[in-house]
């Protein structure tokens, strides 16, 4: 398994597919892993359960996090990531269709690095996602 660059936490397969497609167009989806719920995302990052063989120091460059997730919600995932010194430096981008104020407020309070609304229009969606991928994988300089 190559080094994972993007952890996409998304329970909706259609959204996941659209995201992957948008990234692929720009050749940004080679090292992407999709976690289908919050619990899996945390297991992956903390190398627990089925991911126990992963190397904890091998951190993804960015986490694209949906908020509405089964089992453990997106905000709880965010809280755990930002509260755990081992993984708190991973940039977390909330990618959601919720523009509800409490969500936005809470996400930033918990330390989200960015908050992006999923556009409905496919063209805009593609543009947004590819820009995000490009920015976090190429432009952004991470803290290791």
């Amino acid at each position, binding site marked *: 398994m190559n080094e994972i660059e993007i952890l996409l936490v998304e329970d*909706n397969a*259609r*959204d996941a597919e*659209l995201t992957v*497609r948008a990234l692929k167009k720009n050749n940004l989806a080679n090292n992407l892993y999709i976690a289908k719920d919050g619990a899996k995302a945390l297991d992956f990052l903390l190398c627990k359960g089925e991911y126990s063989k992963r190397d904890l120091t091998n951190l993804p460059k960015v986490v694209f996090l949906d*908020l*509405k997730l089964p089992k453990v919600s997106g905000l709880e995932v965010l809280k755990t990531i930002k509260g755990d010194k081992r993984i708190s430096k991973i940039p977390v981008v909330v990618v*959601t*269709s*919720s*523009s*509800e104020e409490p*969500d936005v407020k809470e996400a930033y309070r918990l330390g989200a690095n960015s908050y992006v609304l*999923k556009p*409905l*229009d*496919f*063209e805009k*969606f593609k543009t947004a996602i590819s820009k995000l991928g490009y920015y976090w994988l190429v432009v952004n300089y991470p803290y290791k």
Partner: protein
Amino acid sequence: MKNASKKSKATRLRQKAEELLKKKPSKSGLQPSETEVLKLIHEFEIHQIELEMQNEELMVAKEQTEVAAEKYAELYDFAPSGYFTLSREGKIIELNLCGSQMLGKERSQLINSRFGFFVSDDTKPIFNLFLKKLFKSKTRESCEVTLLTNGNLTEYVHVTGIVTENGEQCHVIVIDITELKYAEEELRETNEYLMNLFNHANAPIIVWDTSMFITQFNHAFEHLSGYCTEEVIGKKIDILFSKETIESSLDLIERAISGERWETVEIEIQRKDGDSRILLCNTANILEKDNKTVVATIAQGNDITERKHGEEEIQRLIAGLEQRVAERTAQLQAVNKELETFSYSVSHDLKAPLRAIDGFTGILIEEYKNKIDAEGQRICDVIKSSAVQMNRLIEDLLAFSHLNRTELHMSTIDMKTMANSIYYEYSLPEKRENISFTVRDIPGAFGDSSLIKQVWSNLILNAIKFSSKKDHPEIIIDYEAGKNEIIYSVSDNGSGFDMQYADKLFCVFQRLHDSTDFEGTGIGLAIVNRIISRHGGRVWAAGEPDKGAIFYFSLPKHKKRKIK
């Protein structure tokens, strides 16, 4: 005159003495010797001088006696009390000047008159009895009678008598007590007045002494307590209290006795029949002459039982109401919470499939361009635009449900400027050339400025939209001042509406026009309605197909603005 009588008296005495001497037998026939004679003469001379001296003394004593008698007579006559000497039958034997003045006649005319003659009829029996008892008991007796004097003036007198040594007469001292009687009468009247006041006062009044014994109890208190005065006078005040309250009540009473003044003390009285009444009392202490020592306490109460019950009832009602408000608030909060969850789900779950529809249709168009003909392409566009339309509906619905949850941030709003800027913000310059837009001198308002802005935008945009097919669109913004509200209006000369559907205008997703004629989700006026009702105002509209429409909304006049 006195000296002359003195002389004649002395002469008479001499004669008497000579006669007595003649009758006396001579002691001896012996002729006294010359020496003896001389001695005798000497003796006589001394004797004579002695006698003269004695006589002189007697005369002085007599004079003194006369002076004393005169003094006595003066005292007797001018004493302020009447002195009478009466016979057994009550006849006046002697009396002094004051006595005659009391009876209103000359002293001489009164001698031998009956004293009883001057006593008024109603007190005559008293006097007769007095006289009878006086002569019978031979001790000091007294009575009070009324004298009728000249001019029928009545005189109250106090009569004290004592029988003389021979038992046939009595000395009577009569003292005028008219003034005293009148003072007494006045006191009695005052007392009676006060007692009437006390007894017939509307307020229950009670008096207790320092040992907590009830000494006075008025009618109102009888009525309040169910006890009659006779039952409680002389009883301990305890009988007025129930077992539950006696301790605290007695404590209050004790404090009153020790000098504390009650202003408004609530005290519970247990009636004879067991019921209880609540009195709001104030007290005053009756003090000794030293102005310190409490003799008794007078308490006046006001029966506030009904009021108290009323207050309790109000308290109970308020508590009930508060409970209901709390329940209702909790319900509302639960509903709000549900709504929040609902809109959250809507924004997430409803949008995801839409995005998939749009996205995958997009992919279809993009990646399978060559395999789809023109009709297929058109169908794909319909699918995509439907998805966009549905997304707008969802957004509007979310915005609408937000209106109920966001707090109002009230401030003063310059309505005229707001309406103007919205018009310029939302209309294109080339369109404006054709539109006649007038904002009259509308007054400012007090409200949430971002929400009121939504109201103006919806109404102005509607006016622009529905008059856009006219050759000369005309929009007028005006106002009317009501008693407690200001009514704003937006009128246009556009497509109007049929008044029979007027009530549907402000409902969510209700449209009176085909969306192909005028596009929109049908939520704008529902939002206007919701915003205005949250501000305490009303919305309504009038219109006629193809003639135009006028939309009104009112906002309550605000005190703050008035002060300004």
